[in-house]
């Protein structure tokens, strides 16, 4: 589904991604871990098409198409979804209204008929149950005055409604207490399907107690330096990131 080859990207004059290679198939859940500043979130935003990042080399093939050529809204319509680490607030626009615009833009792109209010709300009701989303919350202006947990839950809820093929979760666990974390993780698990791939970006292992990944990758200094199964995450939890840094420096002394 997703093939990232030698991806380089920079912000301003700072190169952040320095050659990412990653292959993701439908139905798989990949965890991407790494210390702060390693490039995890940058990878998420580059895949979603954030304009402030400049791709300087490499390619990304998504469903056989050149993802990097598409503007961000087209990527979304093709099924790429990003759950934001810091979801923005839009005063005066309810989550329901906002999502209906999104759903219908996506449906239109795929040659489907737009949903009317009744069908849309019926669909939304179903998805709300999965993340224990409150009706009152989705009638309020988007993310305005939401707690950290409510914002994250809203992201997962939106993922459910928009039904993406590739979902990228950017540090969805950050700032959540354990109860909120469980609700979010349960939501994610409910939306796992053989047709959908997920890229779960996280700093901590604890989220992976609830969302069991098929693969774990560690990013360091803009590259994936180690890949493995679930056990790798536990190893990181135990030893921290420092042993990896030492290992990388031995292998590629030029980086340091």
């Amino acid at each position, binding site marked *: 589904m997703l093939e990232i080859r030698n991806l380089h990207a920079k912000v301003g004059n700072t190169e952040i991604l320095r050659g990412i290679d990653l292959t993701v198939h439908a139905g798989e859940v990949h965890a991407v871990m790494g210390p702060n500043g390693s490039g995890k979130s940058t990878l998420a935003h580059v895949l979603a098409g954030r*304009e*402030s990042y400049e791709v300087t080399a490499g390619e990304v093939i998504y469903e056989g198409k050149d993802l990097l050529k598409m*503007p961000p809204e087209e990527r979304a319509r093709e099924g790429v979804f990003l759950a934001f680490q810091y979801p923005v607030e*839009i005063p005066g626009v309810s989550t329901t209204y906002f999502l209906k*615009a*999104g759903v219908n833009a996506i449906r239109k792109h795929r040659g489907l008929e737009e949903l009317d209010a009744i069908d849309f709300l019926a669909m939304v009701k179903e998805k709300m149950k999965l993340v224990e989303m409150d009706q009152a919350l989705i009638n309020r202006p988007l993310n305005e005055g939401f707690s950290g947990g409510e914002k994250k839950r809203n992201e997962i809820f939106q993922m459910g409604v928009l039904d993406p093929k590739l979902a990228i979760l950017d540090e969805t666990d950050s700032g959540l207490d354990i109860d909120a974390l469980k609700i979010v993780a349960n939501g994610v698990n409910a939306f796992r399907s053989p047709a959908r791939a997920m890229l779960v970006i996280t700093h901590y292992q604890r989220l992976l107690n609830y969302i069991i990944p098929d693969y774990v990758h560690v990013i360091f200094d803009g590259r994936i330096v180690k890949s493995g199964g679930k056990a790798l995450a536990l190893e990181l939890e135990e030893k921290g990131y420092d042993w990896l840094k030492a290992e990388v420096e031995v292998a590629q002394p030029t980086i340091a």
Partner: protein
Amino acid sequence: MSNQSKTIEALANQEYKYGFVTDIETDSAPRGLNEDIIRLISSKKNEPQFMLDWRLKAYRHWVKMEKSEGEPKWANVKYPPIDYQDIIYYSAPKQKADGPKSLDEVDPKLLETFEKLGISLSEQKRLSGIAVDAVFDSVSVATTFKEKLSELGIIFCAFSEAVENHPDLIKKYLGSVVPYTDNFFATLNSAVFTDGSFCYIPKGVRCPMELSTYFRINQADTGQFERTLIIADEGSYVSYLEGCTAPMRDTNQLHAAVVELIALDNAQIKYSTIQNWYPGDKEGKGGIYNFVTKRGKCVGKNSKISWTQVETGSAITWKYPSCILQGENSIGEFYSVALTNNYQQADTGTKMIHLGKNTRSTIISKGISAGHGQNTYRGLVKILKGATGARNYSQCDSLLLGDKCGAHTFPYLEVNNSTSQVEHEASTSKIGEDQLFYCKQRGISAEDAVNMIVNGFCKTVLRELPMEFAVEAQKLLGVSLEGSVG
């Protein structure tokens, strides 16, 4: 340029939809302004002597004003001097000597013009209950639903007709809120006003339909000076709508209207405006100068006047719909959305003058600036000595799209009573790249995202509009924004 600004730039190219000209024979006065022109206007309208005298008083006062300080200079707008001798002060579509008696007698070209604007003057065709008075250049061409309204004792007619048929009401109320000496443009209007709407709601009557005036400037080089007077007698209620458009021309045209509202005991007036005069082209050439004086007086106790305006048109807007809260417990409200794009300038706001005890006022102003637009909120809250227990709440929010536009806020407070309460909140925000990216990541195009964010920003004001108007206003905001964020 980023992709984002390109998309928004591309949106800029939508043309002003109402820019057509109606080819119709007119009866116009020669250019320029002098006492003879005023006598001509007055005689064209078959006015009684008192009206002519009032006009002449105003004219003489205006001449003095022009010689001394001239136009008001304090507004945060820039424009070249206006040559008042180069304006045509009276222009009317040619018609039979006595004027049309019914819609069947109105020139079909005029009806067609209003159809094109989406204003059907044919009563049978109107689905919603809105009575319309259509003003074309200097005259009112048709008023719908007159008979139905008159069964309730409601008078809704052209201003000139009211002067003829209801001179007592005119004598009593004309200039009682905006005196002919009020300000440069109001004084000019008092001298040369040509038509407008008049409305009287009798005691205890709740007007069953929205009343509406639609103003259309057609002729080149004419000024439009209309006068609206609305009187809500004790315990009555009326909701009034005003809309306006003009053809696209590369010269500026002057629109200097006066609106006076009077609410007696327990009466309520709700006045809504969607102002969509031609704003000029993308380089700032042409467009209407909208220099308007609107004021309401809550004369009676427990009365209420509410102004709601959506200002998207005009090259320059200079307008401060205000309330004089004289009656005890009276309420004044001002809800405003002002949008400036390209080279438009707006200096708008309100004055809330608290005279009576326990009077209350609310001001919600939303300014949106895009392109090179300059948007100024200017508001005065004045609480006089006798206004014990008066309260005011003001909220002024500005939204900027791009970095070449400006938002300015000038709130003035004068409080002379220690028992009063005044609150003021202000904010300025930008449509951020973050917000746009978030929307796009959900599949929403940049233009839809901007519209959504702007409409969300204006929501507290738009919901004050009558239903049909709210939908129109939302669409209008979208169209007017095309080409924002450079």
